[in-house]
C-alpha cells in the first residue's frame, strides 16, 4: 500500500500514468465536467508574512471530474468537504485558485431537509423549474416525471411535514434534477436517514445517475457509502483540507456492500481515514 500522497494533478490521464492503475481509455477521453485548480479557502483574510494563507480550511486542492463520473469526497467532520462543495456550487468563492465547470450549471443537494416548508412537494419542484426558465406549459408533466423518477408518483400535493425523512430527500433529489443541470453536488444527503432507507436511496441514486447521465460529486463521512456509490473515492485530511489519497472503485455489476472486493476496499479506506482522524486528534 503506498504512503499517503497529495495529488497535485488529478486529471484522469495524469492519475492513470502515475498510479499505473487501469483506467479505461473512454474515461480518460471524457470531457471534463468540473475542474478545480489549486483552490485554497480561508474564512477571514489572515495572511502570513510570505503572503500564504494562515489556517486555511482548504489548501491547494486540485481535482478534475470527468463528465458522467461519480466521485465521492470522503473525510472526517470539519475537514472542509462541504466548504469545497459550496465553492463548486458557486455559493462561496475560493480565496485562491480557480474552479471551472465546463459541464455547465451545478445543482446542490443539502444534508438537512432544505425543502421549503411553505410549498407542497410538487410546488418545491415547480419553483426549481420556474427559476430554471423551463416553459410553464411543461411544468406539470415535468413535476410528475421527476416524482416518478424518485418513486413518489402522485405525491406532489403532500406538505413537506407530512413526508418521512427518506421521502423528503427524494423530493430534494427531484428538485435538484429539476434544475436541469448535469452536474449534481450532494452534501451528505442521506446522513440523517436510517440504514435501510439509505440503502434503498443508494440504489436509486445509482440508477438515476446512469439513466440521467449525470456527473455526481458526493460528499460523505461514511466509507461504506463512498465505496458503495463512487467510481472514485477521494480521501481528505483536515486542517488544512487536502486530498491525501484516492481510490478507483473498479467494480462492475452488483455493488452491494456485502461483495467481498467492496468490503476489502472499505476496510482499507477505513484504516486510512482512521489514521487521518488520529493524526488530527493529537
Amino acid at each position: 500500500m503506498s504512503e499517503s500522497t497529495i495529488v497535485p494533478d488529478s486529471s484522469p490521464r495524469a492519475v492513470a500514468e502515475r498510479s499505473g492503475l487501469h483506467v479505461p481509455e473512454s474515461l480518460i477521453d471524457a470531457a471534463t465536467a468540473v475542474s478545480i485548480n489549486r483552490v485554497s479557502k480561508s474564512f477571514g483574510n489572515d495572511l502570513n508574512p510570505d503572503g500564504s494563507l494562515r489556517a486555511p480550511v482548504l489548501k491547494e486542492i486540485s481535482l478534475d471530474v470527468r463528465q458522467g463520473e461519480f466521485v465521492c469526497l470522503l473525510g472526517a467532520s470539519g475537514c472542509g468537504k462541504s466548504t469545497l462543495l459550496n465553492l463548486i456550487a458557486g455559493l462561496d468563492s475560493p480565496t485562491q485558485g480557480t474552479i471551472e465547470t465546463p459541464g455547465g450549471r451545478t445543482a446542490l443537494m443539502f444534508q438537512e431537509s432544505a425543502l421549503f416548508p411553505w410549498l407542497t412537494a410538487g410546488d418545491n419542484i415547480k419553483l426549481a423549474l420556474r427559476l430554471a426558465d423551463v416553459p410553464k406549459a411543461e411544468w406539470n408533466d415535468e413535476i410528475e416525471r421527476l416524482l416518478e423518477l424518485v418513486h413518489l408518483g402522485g405525491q406532489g400535493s403532500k406538505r413537506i411535514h407530512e413526508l418521512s425523512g427518506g421521502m423528503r430527500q427524494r423530493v430534494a433529489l427531484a428538485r435538484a434534477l429539476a434544475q436541469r443541470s448535469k452536474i449534481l453536488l450532494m452534501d451528505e444527503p442521506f446522513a440523517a436517514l436510517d440504514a435501510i432507507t439509505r440503502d434503498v436511496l443508494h440504489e436509486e441514486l445509482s440508477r438515476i445517475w446512469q439513466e440521467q447521465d449525470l456527473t455526481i460529486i458526493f460528499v460523505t463521512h461514511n466509507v461504506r457509502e463512498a465505496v458503495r456509490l463512487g467510481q472514485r473515492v477521494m480521501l481528505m485530511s483536515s486542517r488544512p483540507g487536502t486530498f491525501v489519497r484516492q481510490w478507483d472503485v473498479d467494480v462492475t455489476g452488483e455493488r452491494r456492500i456485502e461483495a467481498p472486493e467492496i468490503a476489502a476496499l472499505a476496510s482499507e479506506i477505513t484504516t486510512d481515514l482512521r489514521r487521518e482522524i488520529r493524526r488530527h486528534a493529537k
Partner: protein
Amino acid sequence: MLAIVVLLVIWWVAYWLKLQPPHLLPSPLDVWGTFTKLLTNGAVWEAVTKSLQRAFLGFAISVVLGTLLGLALAQFTLFRRAFGPLITGLQILPSIAWVPAAILWFSISTEAMLFVVILGATPSIANGLASGIAQMPSIYPRVGKMLGATGFDAIRFVILPAALPGYIAGLRQGWAFAWRSLMAAELIAYAPALGIGLGQVLQQGRELVDMPMVMTAIILILFVGILVELCIFAPLERYVLKQRGLAGAKR
C-alpha cells in the same frame, strides 16, 4: 365569556352603589338600550364604515411602507444599525403624540388622520418582517441562490415566504396600532365635514354628556378591532402555521 359576566356584575354593583351620578354611570341596561337603538339607526353603521375605510387605507399604506422598510432593515446592515433603534423607538412612542403635529401640518383633514395611523402601524410591520427574516433558517437563502433566485425573485420566492410567520405577527400588531391610532386621531381631529367615524361618535357623546352613547362607541371600537383580528389575522396565522406543520389545527 365568564370575564364579561364578571365585568357586567361589577358595573352593575358600581351603578347600584351610585359611585357616580346615573347620567355619568348609566346602568348596563340603559347602555344596552342606546346600543340597540343606535345599531338600528344607520348613522352608527356609517361611522363604523367610515372608520374602517380610514383604518384599512392607512393600514394598506403602512403595509407597503413597513414591508419596504423591513426588507431594508434585514438586507442592509448599515441601514439596520442606523435606523433599527429609531424604528423600534417609534413603535414605543404612542402615536397620539403625533396628532398635534399632524393637525399643524395637514390641518384637520383625512390626511392628518392617515398620517397618525401610518406612523402607528408602520414600525410594527417593519420590525415584524425584519425579525421574521432574521429568524429564518440560514439554509433557505442558500437554497434560493442554488435554485437561481436572485434579487427580486429571492425576495418573492424565498425571503418573504420564509419570513411569513414573523411578518404576519407584525401585521397583526400593526393592525392593532393602526386602529388605536385612528381612534386617537378621530377623537381630536373632529370636523363633521370629514365624515363621522367611531372616534367622532365618542367625542359627540362627550360633548352631549351622553354616557350611554360614549359607552356604545367604546364597545363598538373594541368590537370592530377584535372582529378584524378574529376574521382576518387569526385565520391567516393559523393557516400559515398549519401549512408548515408548526401548529396543531386548533388552539
